[in-house]
């Protein structure tokens, strides 16, 4: 290190790293010793998702493609941009569309935040797929990580559902017709959808338990068409329910990676 560098380091050591404030926040010295590098990871809530040390192959980008971490990172980007959008959006047909128009035209950075949320959502779907692909290709789903793979499959499904519920919210032509096409399939659910096999068997003569006003699609949309109740339901699912479930499962997913150990050749 140069003389200037030494000087800067000395000043930092004396006035920053030894200061009461610094030491109250970070319980370790400058991370250039093994001990402090370990403490950085162990004493930080966010960094301690990692172990203090990893086998060499697990650190390499060509092994993980960083896809798992990036999936979580995309979730954070989408949460932040999503909260921003929530300030300007009301989930009723009267307001939803005009709120988006106003967001694009009148709100500072509104267009940008909407774009980040939209493209980030597409990117997250892709990244989660590729994460699954990598975990498969390195055989990381095998014992003892079977259960965590299952949790990951549910998280993949939740990612798709999060994206799908968000699709309706702009309340434009693309939104309602994509959701109409998507939810039409629900009416064909065996026994639970009114056009599904077996549904007509539940009931007695003309009394049908499962009909177009009582089937699973009706429950999903809160009506028989994609209307105001569907918008509200998808909004609540998108902004509250699904992120909470996903957050809960992510906690399980990350914890299990640590408990089961990062996949490594034996």
């Amino acid at each position, binding site marked *: 290190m140069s003389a200037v560098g030494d000087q800067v380091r000395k000043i930092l050591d004396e006035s920053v790293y030894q200061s009461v404030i610094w030491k109250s926040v970070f319980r370790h010295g400058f991370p250039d010793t093994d001990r402090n*590098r370990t403490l950085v990871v162990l004493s930080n809530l966010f960094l301690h998702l990692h172990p203090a040390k990893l086998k060499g192959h697990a650190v390499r980008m060509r092994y993980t493609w960083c896809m798992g971490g990036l999936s979580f990172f995309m979730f954070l980007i989408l949460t932040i941009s999503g909260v921003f959008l929530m300030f300007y959006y009301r989930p009723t047909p009267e307001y939803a569309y005009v709120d988006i128009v106003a967001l694009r035209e009148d709100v500072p950075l509104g267009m940008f935040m909407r774009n980040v949320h939209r493209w980030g959502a597409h990117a997250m779907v892709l990244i989660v797929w590729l994460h699954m692909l990598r975990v498969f290709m390195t*055989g990381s789903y095998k014992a003892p990580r079977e259960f965590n793979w299952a949790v990951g499959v549910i998280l993949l499904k939740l990612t798709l559902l999060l994206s799908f519920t968000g699709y309706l919210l702009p309340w434009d032509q693309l939104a309602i017709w994509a959701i109409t096409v998507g939810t039409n399939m629900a009416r064909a659910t065996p026994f639970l959808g009114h056009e599904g096999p077996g549904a007509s068997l539940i009931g007695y003569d003309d009394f049908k338990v499962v009909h177009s006003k009582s089937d699973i699609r009706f429950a999903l949309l809160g009506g028989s068409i994609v209307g105001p109740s569907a918008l509200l339901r998808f909004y609540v699912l998108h902004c509250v329910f699904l992120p909470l479930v996903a957050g809960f499962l992510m906690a399980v997913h990350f914890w299990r990676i640590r408990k089961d150990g990062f996949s490594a050749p034996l």
Partner: protein
Amino acid sequence: MSGPVGLGPDYMQPFFDFVNWVCKPQILFSGSVVTFFGALKFRKILVKPPVTIGIVIAMLVFFFISLLSPQFYNEARKADNAPIFIMIVLTGLVIWAAFYQAVNNDERFRQGLRSDEHEAAEEKLHVWPYLIYIEAIVAAFVLAAIFAWSIGLEAPLEQFANPAKSPNPAKAPWYFLGLQEMLVYYDPWIAGVLLPGMIISGLIALPYCDPNPKGVGYFTFEQRRFAISVFLFGFLILWVLLIFVGTFLRGPNWNFFGLYEPWNEHKLLSLNNVNLSEYFWTNLLGKAPPAEWWKREWPGFALILGYFTVMPALATVAFKKFYQQLGFVRFSVVIMHLLVMLSLPIKMYLRWSINLKYIVFIPDYFFNI
């Protein structure tokens, strides 16, 4: 098919016609399946960087030539189709990276060495700084990429929602286009409910049904040929390819169009799809099909029942070692999922070859297969 409208010079027309011909569903699908297994077979050549770069250049050239077609240009510049191109590029990149390392490791095993990952795993590294720095830099790059994408490309907003005016074609979100494509061949209770459900259950069952202890923690192909081939067939052919088809080759009225063929709303296709019962009673026996479904549909039921009983029974013989390894229950789970997975291409080929509509057709109970 009407000829493509291309902006390119006249001598390019045969090329456009050829690509449109290749995009016929049966040719595209068969070609992709052959290409898929061919690529697995010749993986050692394909992963060599000069060969890979050559393929990438060829695909880029193909892409830019394709932009000469007004139809493809229109679809390619739609903001909502951007994820499709990113999907193709990223999927190609990671598949190449996986196979490059797999081929390398398989070669090392043949020489009696350990995997490259195994060598690297000997050393233990501090997460700070060796991993945290990588994560921070990658996160910064991805954030920058998302920001650049968001500055450069505006998220579209279409007209105010109108339940009375349906767009033609009405498409599901891009990641569900594979399912929408399956709807052409199966009724919604299969394509929209049963098949997605079995994708999920199959993925969850996967670790419990893979008895192969090898291949954990390193890239390999030769130690896991069967698992990797099946998984990638499902992912690349039955999912990614169908998304591409749904995006670029499905136009108005969900008709099939060549890559460069203009989307004509008035394109008429003679739809004379025939049920299996009709083939059996009318064409084979030469009499009218019985009105009662339990009499009319027994050939279809027999076929389905046979498919799901005879095939597993044959499989226990053909894959005896696998069967003994897994036991009855787990073997059944694997075979049932594989048979359902294969039923999609089977129904596709039956539709393309003999215009088969339904194998079992009981509209009263919405039970059509």
